[in-house]
């Protein structure tokens, strides 16, 4: 875990790809893409079902590591239509004593009433303490944006033509992008400018890269 400051707020970057806001005991998760494996399977593409459990294992780990009162999903919680993974998710929600808020993403095509019936608040975006939470990376004059959608990743080059591609948190002057939290999601490589801060995820740690010159 790595402590950092985003727009004046103390935050913690978790190696699972979650962003934690200690003051509010809030976890932020982007692009979970639940039901993706199920959606593929329903259409005859045999993705291993073990993937379906990864989200819950990662949540367990997060809850062990941090005191959590609220989760803010930054969109693309579900990959597509409702399928059996919905029931798995509902069962999990019922066991939680958490406040759950979903900021709708482009993949969230399940009618919002269904989320609301589970006690999940759905909103197009969320504003709190000068921070503006959305799914898409947008730009606002007076507010700092925290978002997902991009599945940010970065390519690292080292001596001896070494190369690593890793998911990352991407912190630019007016924007903070979270990596995808889902297990069966790809990466979109970003090119940082000298003012961007990049935090890469290894499976165990979060490491900040030195600023690009």
């Amino acid at each position, binding site marked *: 875990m790595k402590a950092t400051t985003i727009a004046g707020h103390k935050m913690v970057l978790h190696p699972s790809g979650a962003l934690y806001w200690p003051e509010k005991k809030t976890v932020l998760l982007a692009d979970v893409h639940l039901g993706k494996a*199920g959606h593929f399977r329903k259409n*005859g593409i045999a993705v291993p079902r073990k993937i379906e459990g990864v989200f819950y294992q990662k949540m367990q780990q997060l809850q062990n590591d941090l005191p959590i009162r609220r989760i803010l999903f930054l969109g693309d919680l579900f990959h597509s239509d409702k399928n059996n993974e919905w029931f798995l998710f509902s069962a999990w929600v019922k066991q939680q004593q958490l406040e759950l808020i979903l900021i709708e993403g482009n993949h969230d095509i399940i009618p919002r009433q269904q989320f609301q019936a589970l006690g999940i608040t759905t909103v197009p975006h969320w504003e709190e303490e000068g921070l503006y939470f959305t799914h898409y990376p947008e730009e606002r004059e007076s507010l700092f944006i925290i978002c997902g959608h991009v599945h940010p990743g970065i390519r690292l080059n*080292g001596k001896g*033509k070494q190369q690593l591609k890793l998911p990352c948190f991407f912190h630019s002057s007016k924007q903070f992008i979270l990596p995808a939290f889902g297990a069966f999601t790809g990466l979109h490589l970003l090119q940082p400018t000298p003012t961007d801060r990049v935090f890469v995820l*290894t499976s165990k740690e979060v490491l900040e*890269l*030195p600023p690009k010159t």
Partner: protein
Amino acid sequence: MTSIQQWFKTQGWRPQPFQKQCWEAYLAGKNGMLHAPTGSGKTYALWGGIMAEALNQKAAPKGLNALWITPLRALAVEIQQATQRMTSDLLPNQKIGLRTGDTSQAVRAKQKRTPPFGLVTTPESWHVLLSTKDHQKYFQQLQVVVVDEWHELLGTKRGVQVELAVAYLRSFLPHLKVWGISATLGNKALAQEILLGKGTNHQTVEAQIQKKIKVQSLLPKSMERFPWRGHLGMHLLPQVLRIIKKNKTALVFTNTRAQCEIWFHRLLEEAPDLAGHIAMHHGSIDKKIRLWVEAALREERLKVVVCTSSLDLGVDFSPVECCVQVGSPKGVGRLIQRAGRSGHRPKAASTIYFLPTHAMELIEAVALQKGIATQQIEDRTPYINSYDVLLQFLMTLAVGTGFYPQQLYPVLRATFSFQTLTDQQWTWLLNFLVKGSQSLEHYDEYKKVEVLEDGCYKVVHRGIAMRHRMTIGTIVSDADLKVKFQKGGYLGTVEEWFVAKLKPGDVFTFSGRNLELLRMHNMEVIVRKSKSKKTKIPAWMGGRMSFSAHLSDLLKKALFEPDEEATAEFRALAPIFEQQRKESIVPQPNQLLIERFETKEGIHTVFYPFEGYAIHEAMASLMAYRISLLQPISFSMSFNDYGFELLSDQAFDPQAFMDNNLLSGEHLMEDLQKSINISEMARRRFRDIAVISGLVFQGFPNAPIKSKHLQSGSQLFYDVFKDYESDNLLYQQALEETFDHGMERGRMFQVFERMAQQTVVWKSCSQPTPFSFPLITDRIRSKLSSETVEDRIKKMYHQLTQDS
């Protein structure tokens, strides 16, 4: 048969002995294999027999009698015209149909209603026919399947497609005859057995036509400007122009589409008077243009065509006077084939000019000349246990009539590819199709193939059937992206790596136009026209084909035999050898050279076994693995036909390398297996497998949003299987293919035995040597590391901060 002879007479031809042999064998009801080069009259050798048989019947033939399979669409047109010509004269009312990916819906529907006497088609379209519900009735009258250019199909997954379709047709057409036509191969007997099966009712016919082929290297006037590293071969442009001017017509063969585009442009730039007389031909170019080029070439309306392997085969361009090969053809067989495109007049020698793109290829030129002189043509290694192709085929049957596993299993086991398929593997495949996993699971909505009450395996879901029909025929070697204008308008397809190196705003050349890349999105490359003259040339990575075993033997001979030094090629090479000797040595047969030097990129260790790309790829990974056991270290590896390079940020100790006997042949297979798992060599193989087996769906044209949710890259699947289901047969297939097809397992032992006899010469050099240059500048690399990700990042971090 007299009527066939008569027909030949009216054409003013005399049947050749091999043609008569084929007719006789065919009429005797035999299966067979004809070995004959292009332009020898091989089509009529088979078609004459088929006609004779039809004429022997009392009643006029009904239904589809003959199926002619050819690997290329361009060829299909030729065959259709030739067979129709003979048929029209002998059986005036019978038609020969043509069915390829280019055939319109209307024509297909008509072919279905009234089947023609003969049908010329490709393996993919053949499988599409098998996916129809009434295909058994459609093929009821079928007498023969002719597989043309079998040598091209064998050794590819399309060859496995052919094996499967032949075995399947035979299961309900027991008297079906199967004939193959093939150019000369190293492993003729095996090639025949794979296509015809193990039976005894087979006839082999040899055309016995030896063409004289001359290979002439193009040499630069001075070696000073001759590049050490392969690229495009542009330094020899003036020589090529001179050849073009001297000959009436010429074909310029390149190894990749990108290279083809660039050569076309540069030739035109250099000699503007060629405008209107020069054209380009490669697989991504629009069909209409391709057909026009082919026709124009035949009618001598074009002087020069720059092409890729798209013009390798069949199509008879009698007027072509000479051929130029740019860069290594990687095999004797391919060079013979390309040379055969020219000088079709009987007994005329075909000349092919070989244009080396870098210095080392000059040695290849000598090796190729030797190989052609001694007719050392390579083997084609067939694929075995291609589960991806089998799954695709099972789906093809399941979307049509459906299939019964108990009946189908023995049919599959009779093919060469699946002769060792076990009951367990068969059960796995069926489970994969029906359940999407190997155990019965609760709350699973997996849907693909359903088992009907009578035990028939069938696809019921329409969307799944539709998606499958679209993926039949996606056995391609590289992912193709569609090139489109921003305002709409389709230009063709381009291989992924070609654009992978480009950034938005870059200008590149495609189908003769300069285009600016706007963006890439969902397998589409969006472009607009550009006036900019400065086009970006994606560095050519060199054909990723390996040298054949033959060619690497020939290469060693050329390099090691001192009398060769008298040849023009070696004279031209002398300055480079001299430079090599300054820093290092030119190894002798009893020496294994290893060079070590440092550049700002890191520590380079270069090995030169001269065994061909495939072996080197495996050896690089094996050596890296063994070294990584001695210390935590990360390697980036490159390989070519001469050797391989291990690049690292820290040096490993030569003494430790020698003392630990890392070149040993002991535990060879075990270590290789481990190195494959770690280095992820199999990752590249998996891309094809994911597409063929239907895991990766590339979307419908003009797809509704729905199918977008089903798109995913093969790399993601590879990771998922690796992490969550490593016993998946498709994942295992990727590893096995790397083993078998990539590295020729059997040969690997021989290589290590030979190395055990050699003295290792370890040279520390102050700078890169000429031999090493193509290797260290190659950007396609494999990786292997025994360091943790965290350590590697911290090191990169450290280097970054030091640099700044």
